[in-house]
């Protein structure tokens, strides 16, 4: 039965591999997902953009105020702190975990017995909920009952004990250590996959030429990872901009708003101060940054896709 049907149609070549379809078939495939996506992601985005141009408090009429909320974001000192912290956080979370992940991946390149164990250990924190990570690290930093000060005291470094989260200078770096801890596993896994896709012959050739570890890393591994670098940077950047739970649960933006990031400052404005209009403007600055990374990234990832 198969042959009788296929005989007349077989000679017709498929046009560039993909066929045209009737609108109804298409709609049936695409509509369910698109509807959910549009109503629960796109539409809330649009709505909060509209709110950001109003002085709305969450109740009563919405008064259009033009760009004044955005002016406040770029002049108010707490908002600027949040913006600066978000930028620093993003820079650190892109560079440090990627660098550690790359070095680990390179060290584990040869395989060996311990590769699996090390990889598992480094990757494990990424399956923990951020709020759990926050609880653990908040406790590590506790000035009186925390692990870190207790440990420093026991190894004779009592002079180094400080209130890690209590001062405006040490709070943000302390939070970043926790951030790095959960973020190393992801780039490590990507770099391992990237390194494994480099042809072993390249390593063999470089080794025959008498190349040492550094030579191999510099002239074979790094050039072979160009695409992986771009992906790691884009995804870490997107993740870092969305930092929320670690700050919210460990310092709640304190002390004195010194650890606010855009996400927590938006949340505080909308849900604690009932300044929905202003909070939405803070949020949209963040969203604009996120989209500024995501749009070129997505266009690049789909670059082979002509339509």
């Amino acid at each position, binding site marked *: 039965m198969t042959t009788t049907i296929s005989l007349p149609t077989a000679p017709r070549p498929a046009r560039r591999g993909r066929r045209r379809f009737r609108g109804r078939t298409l709609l049936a495939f695409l509509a369910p997902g698109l509807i959910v996506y549009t109503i629960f992601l796109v539409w809330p985005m649009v709505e909060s953009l509209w709110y950001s141009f109003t002085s709305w408090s969450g109740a009563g009429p919405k008064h259009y105020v033009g760009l004044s909320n955005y002016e406040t974001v770029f002049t108010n000192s707490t908002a600027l702190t949040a913006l600066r912290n978000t930028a620093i956080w993003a820079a650190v979370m892109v560079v440090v975990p990627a660098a550690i992940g790359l070095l680990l991946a390179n*060290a584990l390149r040869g395989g060996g017995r311990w590769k699996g164990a090390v990889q598992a250990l480094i990757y494990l924190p990424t399956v923990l909920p951020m709020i759990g990570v926050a609880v653990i690290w908040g406790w590590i930093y506790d000035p009186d009952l925390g692990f870190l000060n207790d440990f420093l005291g026991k190894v004779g470094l009592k002079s180094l004990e400080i209130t890690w989260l209590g001062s405006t200078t040490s709070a943000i770096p302390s939070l970043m250590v926790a951030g790095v801890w959960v973020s190393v596993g992801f780039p490590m896994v990507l770099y391992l996959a990237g390194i494994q896709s480099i042809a072993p012959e390249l390593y063999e050739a470089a080794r025959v030429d008498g190349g040492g570890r550094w030579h191999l890393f510099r002239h074979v591994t790094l050039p072979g990872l160009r695409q992986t670098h771009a992906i790691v940077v884009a995804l870490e950047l997107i993740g870092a901009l969305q930092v929320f739970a670690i700050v919210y649960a460990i310092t709640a933006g304190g002390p004195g708003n010194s650890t606010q990031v855009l996400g927590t400052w938006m949340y505080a404005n909308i849900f604690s101060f009932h300044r929905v209009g202003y909070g939405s403007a803070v949020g949209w600055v963040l969203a604009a940054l996120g989209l500024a990374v995501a749009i070129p990234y997505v266009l690049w990832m789909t670059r082979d896709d002509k*339509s």
Partner: protein
Amino acid sequence: MTAGSTVRAASPADPITLTPAVPARKTARRRRQPGRPAVSQRLVVGLIVLAGCIVFATPLLLVLFTSIQPETQVITNGPASLPHHFTMGNFSAAWTGGALGRYYRNSLLILVVKVPVGIVLSSLAAYPLSKMRFRGRKTILVCLLVGLGVPQVVTLYPLLELSKDVGLSGSVWILLLPYLAFGMPFEIFVMRGAFASVPEEVLEAARIDGAGEFRIWARVCMPMVLAPLASLAILDGVATWNEFVIALALLSNQSSDTLPIGISNLQGQFGVNFAQLSAGVLIAVAPMVLLFFVARRYLVRGVAAGALKG
């Protein structure tokens, strides 16, 4: 690597207690091979990795050790000490006192509905985006994927209003549709990559046999991407189980809270009773940590494939 060795090797205590003996043995074995890096070099790298692993494992061991000793001991000895007396009391206290059972139920309900429904919706959408030609395909694809960059916080207030309109306030189901929407970009990303590996000839053959597109999607395409599907289900499950910020904004009472919000509640409830707090955190993360050890290959492969495949 077999699943068995993964589980054994991945126990957090292993790298610390067992690694020191290894670099020497391994280098001795490998020294004879020409072109291998020098012994000293390998030793240095090994030691650096080892030191890093110890630092890295400390927070995990801290939680584990604290949860199995009485609170009084944590206070008198300080948290930076090995446990001497053991108890399971913290776990039962956290379970009953922290109402973890209810949080568990809510998280499970969302998980078992969100993950399959999300994967079906995304696989449906990814199929024409990967396998059909039509006007506007690239635009729809890019719009769907760009959602990766949208921070959830921006949408919280409109989402809250929206879900009040729908009348789901106070129920855990309020999370379902936002979770589905926010999960979609990554899911479509993965499924599109997976479908790209299905040869056109197979689909063409099914079409010639007279199969409709739905039948082809369900009976031909999906069975050919089972491995990526498994990875995606695990990744999606972990993300759903751990989601915090949307739940924080939308859930309005303790009876509908999910586990991440529950952990946050525990923090307020137990304060500095770190023994019970640790036990509570461990209970909450246990399913995903177990899943991690059982299915790490799928998880890691899914992360790599999902991110690297265009």
